[in-house]
């Protein structure tokens, strides 16, 4: 369901080749099991949004945009803003995304992203501190809408989307808001949105997602869709800079031994350090590039 395995037409020989290569730590594109494809980040690609980014990992390409709107906080959390993640899988990327196939994948990806990036109920481990989105407690807050779009799909969509959201959030400027004083407590306070001053998010604690795909008895990072079609199961682990695990989701039906799962989580933690550094330098480079242009 999660993969587009049905669309990858592979012969028995090709399947054997992929599996054999992974077993010998030399994958079809020459990578090792723990090597990522080159990652490329571009920020500020959508002028209409408060923040946006395009991330390419090999042939996989995704866009994330962040839109902020004023809204009312949830009555159960009056001191917090709201954040929602939606993913859209356009059929332009892959014919199988048309109709239900795309919807299923999209909802599964959004669910996995929410689980990996938004933290627990009390807000522990969240990538973004929702309390920072509050303007007037119980009255006005920012609603942050994060939209992901899959433009081209060649495996490892979740990691790419996670990286794109991180880049888009560090690119996001939330307008500064002045609250008119003297409004009575019952009415909605008047707010004045500044169009010059912007607040930046602190994304240093934002986790990255590392998906480990198990093919045969080995697991690999950054699987292409050909490799994903041969997977028995995959574990997506989100890790923040402190090395804390912020979310885990498993996909693929096959069962895994508990010790293998703990091994994979530990491995993901090691990999994530390099990935965070690589991503941060890419984001910084993209931001610098954007400033030069403007």
């Amino acid at each position, binding site marked *: 369901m999660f993969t587009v395995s049905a669309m990858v037409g592979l012969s028995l020989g090709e399947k054997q080749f992929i599996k054999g290569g992974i077993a010998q730590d030399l994958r079809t594109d020459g990578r090792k099991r723990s090597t990522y494809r080159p990652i490329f980040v571009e920020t500020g690609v959508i002028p209409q949004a408060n923040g946006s980014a395009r991330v390419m990992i090999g042939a996989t390409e995704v866009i994330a945009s962040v839109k902020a709107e004023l809204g009312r906080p949830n009555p159960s959390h009056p001191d917090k803003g709201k954040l929602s993640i939606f993913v859209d899988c356009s059929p332009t990327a892959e014919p199988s995304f048309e109709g239900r196939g795309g919807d299923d994948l999209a909802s599964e990806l959004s669910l996995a992203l929410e689980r990996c990036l938004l933290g627990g109920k009390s807000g522990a481990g969240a990538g973004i501190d929702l309390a920072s989105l509050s303007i007037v407690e119980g009255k006005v807050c920012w609603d942050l809408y994060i939209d992901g779009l899959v433009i081209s799909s060649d495996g490892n969509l979740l990691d790419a989307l996670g990286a794109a959201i991180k880049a888009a959030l560090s690119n996001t400027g939330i307008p500064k808001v002045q609250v008119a004083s003297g409004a009575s407590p019952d009415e909605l306070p008047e707010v004045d949105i500044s169009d010059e001053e912007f607040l930046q998010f602190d994304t240093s604690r934002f986790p990255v997602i590392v998906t480990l795909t198990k093919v045969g008895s080995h697991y690999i990072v950054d699987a292409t869709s050909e490799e994903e079609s041969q997977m028995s199961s995959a*574990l997506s682990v989100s890790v923040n800079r402190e090395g804390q695990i912020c*979310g885990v989701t498993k996909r693929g039906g096959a069962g895994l031994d508990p010790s293998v799962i703990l091994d994979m989580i530990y491995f993901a933690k090691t990999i994530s350090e390099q990935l965070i550094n690589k991503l941060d330098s890419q984001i910084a480079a993209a931001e610098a590039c954007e400033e030069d242009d403007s």
Partner: protein
Amino acid sequence: MAGKGGATPATYAPSPSTKKDKKKPSTFADADWVRPDGRSFHQCRPAFLKTAAVNSASGSAYAEFGSTKVIVSVFGPRESKKAMMYSDVGRLNCNVSYTTFATPIRGQGADSKEVSSVLHKALEGAIILESFPKTTVDVFALVLESGGSDLPVIISCASLALADAGIMLYDLITSVSVSCLGKNLVIDPLPEEESNQDGSFMIACMPSRDEITQLTLTGEWSTPKINEATQLCLDACKKLGKIMRSCLKEAVSGGSQEEEL
């Protein structure tokens, strides 16, 4: 919500839990607090399980874990819908719904689409789909009362219903969740605990094969804590597996039973 000064509230919404919630987080952070139902941190609620709860279904089960009450029916294997393509392995279709009266506020059950997809992923690894090509097995779960840890109860109950329907399984699936509250790990959490948790951890596993089919984790966890939670869940899953097995045996000889985990 206008919280202040209302002598006569405009609308009446019974919300017994919201008042308490505001005070609770401070107590949950303490090293030793007492759980709302007086259990110890690593103690599960008493479970009541019964198979053949619905007559018209091929197999069904009813589970009651504390106040969480779930009924699951399994239909099939029956012919897949005409629109479906030919498939040489069977299909599994899962659907979870909440009754409108399952929650304190009417119709506030969890998103059924999300729950259904997790249920599907938890079960598909245990079913021998090759044993019924071209056909579909439907698993319909209904949450009668949502009393915390709904999803693990649904998963365990569904696997019991599948077994009752005579669907070929590699093993029963049992599922247990753990909440992280402050420094403590709390097994089989209640709604009050779930709404204040710092992190949640859920495992669905095949106890006799010692394989994990589904695992979800949210919040912030260190690796030693994940180890601890996994051990805790697996132990509880093993015990639950034994209870489910004896429930199935009991069903053959007649009668049902209640046991404490």
